[in-house]
């Protein structure tokens, strides 16, 4: 498999799995406005995932289209970073299993800051098809970052309860951000984007170093991805080739 295919597949899988996780909030968000906002973000990610996976299929040249890549691969064949597959709640109580908004916002803040810069980098790259997809996606990521920033500030610099939960979310998600930069040199710029937000939100930025879980880019995932895929793929696999 070519390096270009691997690169595009990793980007597409990030977007696809992030979309599926965000979509879990649909009908469960704190209010209807937030419900629509989160669904919009999920659809942005899904739209980018479709373009990237279609293009990955072309690069591979094995006849796999976006559906084959999204629905007919098993967990070890996915190349998304671990960060996007993490559930929407903190592993420890009292974080509600139905979804902890602070966790979702921490994931979105870190992911959007990375995706924006990565897409901008690719938009200026030599691959013109990928550059066109990335240029479109970079604008969406910029909005996702703006949205996540707003909520990080509100929760971090809010009540004692919201501050504690946002800090816990940042601490929980932070280790998973290292993997995002294994195939690029964007971490310094990412830190420069994220650090001021955390500071203004009166949140403590975890120190560099420490535990750095990896493996997603090599197909070694958490059990959370397996469960997510089971739900995402079941209809397609039960009705192969079905059309609306």
């Amino acid at each position, binding site marked *: 498999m070519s390096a270009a295919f691997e690169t595009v597949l990793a980007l597409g899988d990030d977007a696809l799995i992030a979309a599926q996780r965000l979509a879990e909030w649909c009908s469960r968000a704190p209010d209807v*406005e937030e419900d629509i*906002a989160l669904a919009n973000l999920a659809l942005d990610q899904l739209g980018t995932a479709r373009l990237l996976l279609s293009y990955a299929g072309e690069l591979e040249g094995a006849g796999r289209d976006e559906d084959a890549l999204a629905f007919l691969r098993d967990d070890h064949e996915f190349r998304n970073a671990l960060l996007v597959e993490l559930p929407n709640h903190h592993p420890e109580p009292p974080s509600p299993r139905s979804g902890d908004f602070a966790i979702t916002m921490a994931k979105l803040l870190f992911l959007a800051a990375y995706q924006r810069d990565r897409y901008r980098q690719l938009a200026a790259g030599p691959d013109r098809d990928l550059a066109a997809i990335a240029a479109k996606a970079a604008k969406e990521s910029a909005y996702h970052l703006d949205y996540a920033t707003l909520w990080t500030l509100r929760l971090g*610099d809010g009540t004692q309860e919201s501050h504690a939960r946002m800090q816990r979310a940042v601490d929980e998600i932070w280790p998973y951000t290292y993997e995002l930069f294994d195939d690029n040199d964007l971490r310094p710029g990412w830190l420069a984007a994220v650090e001021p937000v955390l500071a203004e939100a009166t949140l403590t930025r975890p120190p560099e170093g420490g535990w750095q879980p990896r493996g997603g880019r090599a197909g070694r995932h958490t059990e959370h991805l397996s469960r997510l895929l089971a739900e995402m793929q079941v209809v397609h696999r039960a009705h192969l080739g079905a059309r609306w």
Partner: protein
Amino acid sequence: MNSGTGSSAGQEPVTGEDGGVGVPLWEVFVRPRRGLSHAHVGSLHAPDAATALRHARDVYTRRQEGVSIWVVPAAQITASSPEEKDAFFDPAADKAYRHPTFYPVPDGVPHL
């Protein structure tokens, strides 16, 4: 910075008409394109102006309906009341001379 409570100076949380959930109601105005005025499209709940603007973007401009958005605290709007309807609006009914119907609209000015 006091973004967490939404009660920074000059922007007190608006109470009343909040659907009983403690989150203020905002009226949303969208300008469909350059050359047209902002028009009222609906309302939404949000804790502060910045959030209201983003919600308005997501709820009312997802299908490219606009190029500009205003959000206004619903409680800040002074409205005419139904009891005043006769006194306010009926006197205009028989004053046809106020309608500028006596000259042709030039071509190419559809929104005049």
